[in-house]
């Protein structure tokens, strides 16, 4: 339980994090240009090219930077006014190594817990508990500077969640992790979001991770949110295309569908057939033709665009928009 004031958090704001027209300048360089973004419970991916303003946005949520304009609310609390209370609600896994040299892994997590307000003995108990959950093993007793990258990441993650925060912010959480560790880390995030109701914001460049665990995505380019919404909506096909996955004479299957007047083609990635079916009758016809052509079909699902494609298209659109703005700007 977090002592963040007398009013229940949910009554003050239904959204854990809300940003409204947030602006931040470093000198004459705009870093956040009117960012408006709501981060609901669940896992939200924050993506964008280098220098897009992701780290500054995280700092704005933590109340670490003074904003030029706009407003941030974390569970209804303005970090500019009550940064300490806001930071009580948040656990952060920073991108870079951040540890106290000389402390062991478990001491580091205990220290983080105590700084967050846990009593000394409870902090140690929870530190061990969370490290167990993170599968830290006996390495927790080694000093942090001697730990492997993966172990340091586990310690940083454990330190971020040891005080049971409402919101967890992770900056490149899978950096330096081997595939097994990466999968385990993503699994823990899903567990936290699904089973413990945490709001998780993952800032990453690894779009595959975003697509595999995130419910929502926000794309930040040059300080502006260019894309925000659920992953399903963003990657869904606007043309309501379907993909049939299966094996057998796929060319024959495509020919038969075409003969029936349906749009169909072999998928460019070689994984099944892409087809356009707008009504249930067309879907039934697809199954019939697959059987007749001898195609062993095991899935017919809405076609999803790869997130990378969505990302690149949004970047291109952002470039075009900025060029247009420059062209229209008075000389």
């Amino acid at each position, binding site marked *: 339980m*977090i002592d963040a004031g007398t009013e229940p958090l949910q009554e003050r704001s239904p959204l854990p994090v809300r940003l409204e027209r947030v602006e931040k300048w470093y000198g004459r360089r705009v870093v956040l240009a009117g960012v408006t973004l709501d981060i609901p419970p669940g896992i939200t991916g924050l993506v964008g090219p280098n220098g897009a303003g992701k780290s500054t946005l995280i*700092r704005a949520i933590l109340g670490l930077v003074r904003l030029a304009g706009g407003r941030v609310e974390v569970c209804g609390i303005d970090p500019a006014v009550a940064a300490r209370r806001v930071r009580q609600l948040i656990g*952060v896994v920073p991108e870079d*190594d951040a540890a106290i040299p000389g402390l062991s892994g478990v001491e580091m997590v205990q220290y983080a817990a105590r700084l967050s307000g846990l*009593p000394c003995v409870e902090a140690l108990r929870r530190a061990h508990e969370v490290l167990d959950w993170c599968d830290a093993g006996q390495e927790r007793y080694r000093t942090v500077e001697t730990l492997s990258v993966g172990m340091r990441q586990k310690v940083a993650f454990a330190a971020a969640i040891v005080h049971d925060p409402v919101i967890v912010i992770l900056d490149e959480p899978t950096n330096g992790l081997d595939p097994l560790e990466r999968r385990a880390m993503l699994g823990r995030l899903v567990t936290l979001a699904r089973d413990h109701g945490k709001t998780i914001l993952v800032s990453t460049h690894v779009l595959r991770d975003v697509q595999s665990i995130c419910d929502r995505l926000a794309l930040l380019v040059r300080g502006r949110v260019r894309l925000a919404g659920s992953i399903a909506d963003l990657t869904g096909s606007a043309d309501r295309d379907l993909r049939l996955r299966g094996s057998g004479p796929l060319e024959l299957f495509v020919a038969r569908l075409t003969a029936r007047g349906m749009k169909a083609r072999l998928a460019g990635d070689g994984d099944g057939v892409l087809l356009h079916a707008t009504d249930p009758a067309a879907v039934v016809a697809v199954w019939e033709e697959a059987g007749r052509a001898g195609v062993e079909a095991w899935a017919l699902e809405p076609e999803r665009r790869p997130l990378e494609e969505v990302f690149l298209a949004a970047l291109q659109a952002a470039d075009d928009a900025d060029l247009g703005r420059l062209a229209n700007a008075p000389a």
Partner: protein
Amino acid sequence: MPLHDVGYRAWEGVLRPRAAAVVIAGTGIRLAWKSRWLRRVMLFAWSPALMFAGGFFAFEQAVEDGSIAAGRDATRRLDGFGLVGRLVATSLGGQLDDPEAARRIVWSRLLLAFMRAPQAVLLAVVVGLVAPRLIAGDLRARAWLVYFTRPVSRSDYILGKFGVLAAIVTVITLLPALVLWLVGVLVSPSLAVALATWDLPLRIIAAAVAVTIPTVLLALAYSSLTAESRIATFAWFATWVACWIAHGALAGADMAAATRPQGGAAVDADPYAEDPPSEHPPSEDPSAVMPRHAQQFNWLARAAGIDNSVDRWAWLSLYHAQGVVQAWIFGIEQRFVVVLPPLASLVAVALGSLGVLLVRVEAPARA
């Protein structure tokens, strides 16, 4: 998976991050104490206290066997304790009639000499070796992210780091000085001496605070200016040495000018002359006249406030400024006009360092 893995559980208690400074200080002390050399230095730092305890013992023995009242011969006897004996003898000066008054003079000067001569130098060394890593190390390891992403304010952080050094200062300066006072009480003829000197522990604490605040804040400010602790260490010692040299040169020039007769040629002062030339008129204060046998220990005499010539350059050097202020706290230096410049200098150093700290400690998080 460990057998005792209970999974991730919600925390049912209440978070109260109100003592972050204590947590930071406690952890910092524990980390510093891991260093073997620091433990040795801290232990070594208590050894001068043994010598000064001898001074207390010698004085109280003289009081007990009545040799204090017997006149100046007593001071010669006390010379047997070397430096401390000379200090005691010099403190007694010509006023040996009242043992109570003599006790106050002797104890105050012994304590001041103890805090100034060995401890202040040791303190500068230890602080110079421990402090630079406190913030520079955090900057280097990016540990500021650990602090400022949690409910830790700048003041918590600074207070925590201050607490680490304050603990070291306490162990090196304050505790031994308090123990010396206690030793003085225990070896005195009556425990009533504790009541008669009740103010000395308070003066010791005040003198330790006068050392701690500017010294620690300056050391932390240097540490906050760089991520390389070696640079901060160098800057710290360079500052002490440079200020010491600058003070020595200017104070030396003043002393040379004071010994120059009206005619112009410098007097070849005989350090063993019975009445050395002085810019000050003779006073009733026993410390005003410095016996010749004490002159070869000028440094100790200055540390104990026996040499009461006005050091108008004391404000230039942290060490000397602290000395003047501490002498004032112990009631040895009573001319406020003499104390004012060093006091102002210490306040300026403390405030300036605090300003630097406030700006610097959160700077990486805001960048």
